[in-house]
């Protein structure tokens, strides 16, 4: 370190949140004794305007080059203080925060003596770590103002059109021969009885007409390299191969209804699926007088443990259409639980019951038995088994992930869950993003969704994607790993352990990590046998310093 370390420690009262338990004065006095500490100050609310401007002022006046704030959680307040450091003219990463509120005063309220000792320890560890902080800069790269949307079902097309509407070019890939996805086969869409083919037909027409949307059918993604703002995609459409650059990627590959092979005597003729029923309703080719629908076929069982969410509504919708299509038709719905959330769906459910659709509950351990022309079921209301007439048996099967989702997940290096549905970065905080930045998801590819939900998600994903596309460049903080070539032994360990497959060997036999792609987890740093990977954001020196400071050098920890 060329210049002398001058650490400033700011201890926050947080009103009485901290000061009510901890003796701030003692902490300040203690901090002052720690190595490299040039200055200690207490504030009532460090994060308030007064507090931050005070830090800026003191840093400048006292020539501090490292800042430690002992206050609340960095998860909410770190950005404020980093900005404050920047304002004061030092690198925002010359800042270390220590949490003496959530991790101390709030959780050890009744144990003030120990809490005080712990707060001292935490401050000591933070100061020790601060001595090893390194400046971290940002870097930027150009954004390719183009998106790729994979899947041209209702979600993919809605998303692609929305991105195009923002003025960006979109590559829209569909693996089937025709665009439209599942909606091509459906009849009417609940709850407002929109004709599926009309809805999807309009979208297909719009996509085909829009110059900014380049549609490719019979398409397959072959390879994706690069990173947010600058993905290089190789894909094929029919026999042709293409390579293009896009800034963002949206996964909208949808799902497929499970084909109930070997379940309930499924034969596709007299025992059919809901989608097959819709096809018949669409053609008007139906005359069954008595229909039995069975719910949760192949769903909510040990090997497929999830509820597909939409099948109950599909059954309710189709039971009403049956009633309309065939006069005096009898419809029975055999269910385990009914999933009809939301005002309109609940209303439809009531309507079906009013119109005479009979709902009978069954249990997984005593399922209905499909026989020729009849279905036997234990009727809990009657307390005995009944035999229902069934000209037609309709099985409600779940939406399952499309068969190629796992392959695509490998190409894109994004995760899928145990049922092979794509997994978002966070269910609540980032429901439309993948952990890999610049890749988004919507529709059935994530989890079974209604048309309405798929549309919401598609518009949301389009909005997330457009945020990136609307900037000329993208800036990233360098909290990433970097190989020190002279130490690298060329062992390929980092290449093998990186969950994002970012490191690669260069022509000199040394590993290289593309900073734009690095996600900053530090896994390779901890694995590299030559300790040749530097990670400024959480370096070995910083962590070791914190470990070394766990225990005060001279203090005797005797409690007697």
């Amino acid at each position, binding site marked *: 370190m060329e210049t002398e370390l001058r650490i400033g420690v700011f201890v926050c009262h947080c009103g009485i949140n901290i000061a009510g338990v901890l003796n701030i004065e003692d902490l300040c006095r203690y901090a002052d004794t720690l190595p490299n500490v040039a200055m200690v100050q207490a504030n009532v609310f460090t994060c308030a305007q007064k507090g931050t401007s005070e830090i800026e002022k003191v840093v400048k006046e006292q020539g501090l080059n490292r800042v430690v704030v002992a206050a609340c959680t960095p998860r909410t307040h770190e950005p404020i203080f980093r900005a404050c450091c920047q304002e004061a003219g030092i690198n925002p990463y010359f800042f270390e925060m220590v949490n003496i509120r959530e991790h101390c005063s709030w959780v050890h309220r009744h144990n003030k003596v120990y809490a005080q000792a712990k707060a001292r320890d935490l401050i000591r560890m933070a100061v020790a770590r601060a001595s090893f902080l390194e400046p971290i800069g940002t870097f930027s790269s150009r954004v390719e103002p183009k998106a790729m949307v994979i899947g041209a079902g209702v979600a993919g097309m809605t998303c692609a059109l929305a991105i195009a509407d923002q003025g960006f070019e979109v590559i829209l890939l569909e693996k089937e021969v025709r665009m439209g996805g599942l909606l091509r086969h459906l009849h009417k869409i609940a709850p407002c009885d929109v004709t599926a083919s009309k809805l999807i037909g309009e979208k297909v027409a719009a996509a085909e007409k829009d110059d900014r949307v380049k549609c490719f059918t019979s398409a397959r993604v072959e390879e994706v390299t690069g990173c947010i703002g600058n993905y290089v995609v190789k894909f094929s459409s029919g026999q042709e191969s293409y390579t293009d650059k896009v800034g963002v990627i949206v996964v909208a590959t949808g799902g497929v209804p499970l084909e109930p092979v070997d379940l309930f005597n499924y034969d596709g003729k007299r025992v059919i699926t809901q989608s097959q029923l819709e096809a018949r309703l669409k053609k008007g080719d139906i005359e069954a007088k008595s229909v039995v629908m069975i719910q949760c076929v192949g769903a909510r069982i040990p090997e497929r443990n999830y509820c597909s969410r939409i099948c109950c509504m599909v059954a309710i919708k189709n039971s009403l259409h049956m009633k309309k299509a065939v006069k005096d038709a009898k419809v029975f719905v055999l269910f385990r639980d009914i999933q009809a959330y939301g005002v309109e769906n609940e209303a439809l459910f009531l309507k079906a019951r009013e119109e005479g659709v009979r709902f009978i509950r069954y249990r997984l351990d005593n399922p209905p038995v499909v026989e020729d022309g009849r279905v036997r079921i234990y009727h809990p209301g009657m307390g005995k088994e009944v035999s229902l007439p069934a000209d037609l048996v309709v099985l409600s099967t779940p939406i399952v992930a499309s068969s190629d989702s796992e392959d695509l997940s490998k190409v894109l290096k994004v995760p899928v869950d145990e049922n092979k549905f794509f997994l978002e970065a966070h269910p609540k905080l980032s429901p439309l993003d993948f952990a890999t930045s610049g890749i988004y998801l919507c529709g059935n590819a994530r989890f079974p969704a209604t048309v309405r939900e798929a549309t919401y998600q598609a518009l949301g994903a389009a909005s997330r994607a457009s945020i990136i596309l609307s900037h000329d460049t993208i800036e990233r903080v360098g909290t990433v790993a970097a190989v020190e070539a002279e*130490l690298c032994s060329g062992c390929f360990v980092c290449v093998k352990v990186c969950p994002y497959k970012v490191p690669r060997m260069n022509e000199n036999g040394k590993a290289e990590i593309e900073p734009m792609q690095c996600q900053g987890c530090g896994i390779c740093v901890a694995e590299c046998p030559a*300790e040749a990977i530097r990670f400024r954001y959480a370096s070995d020196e910083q962590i070791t310093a914190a470990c070394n400071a766990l225990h005060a050098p001279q203090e005797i920890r005797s409690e007697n």
Partner: protein
Amino acid sequence: MEEILTMVEEFDRILVLGCGGCTTVCCAGGAREVETLATLIRMDRKQKGKPVETLEAVTELQCEPESVKPILEKLANQYDVVLSMACGAGVQTVAQLFPNHNALPALNTLFTGRAEEHGVWTENCLACGDCVLWRTGGICPVTRCAKSLMNGACGGASEGKCEVSKDRPCAWQEIYHALKRLDKLHYLKQEPQVKDWPVHPGKVVREDLREGEATRVD
């Protein structure tokens, strides 16, 4: 570990010396392992009330005197013993360069192999001096057959696994499959082969690479 701790028992200043070559690549004696071993030794000795000083260093290639010399010279007088995390060749390089220092091996060099996956290594070469891979479909019977058989399988394999361990595939059955793929099964019907076990030369000389004047050949 216990063996190492016994080895260094008498010493109070230990230089743990890693190697940036093979032992780094196979995660046995690079900077990371040096740090781990040094820490463990310190912890053990602290526990026993006989604290010890450790120095940590990594040579680029410990089997190369030019790489070892400067580091050890720089650290001279700061340690009583070198605990080498290189292979036997590295340990002996240190021992030979500095005959008055104690050089101890921290590793038991097991084999020459390759990384199957991160964390899994297989033995593939015994440096036997008489390579037969050309007629065994690229599968080494010397290392991969428990008995190093040269003339085909023994009768001990069951379900394709070696009699020695169920985790170990019968090398000769693998050779059979490989040769079958290559359409070279006739290699298995050769004259009886007696493996040539050459005396390990202990030294290999390539005159063309050596310094000095060429000897005239008339």
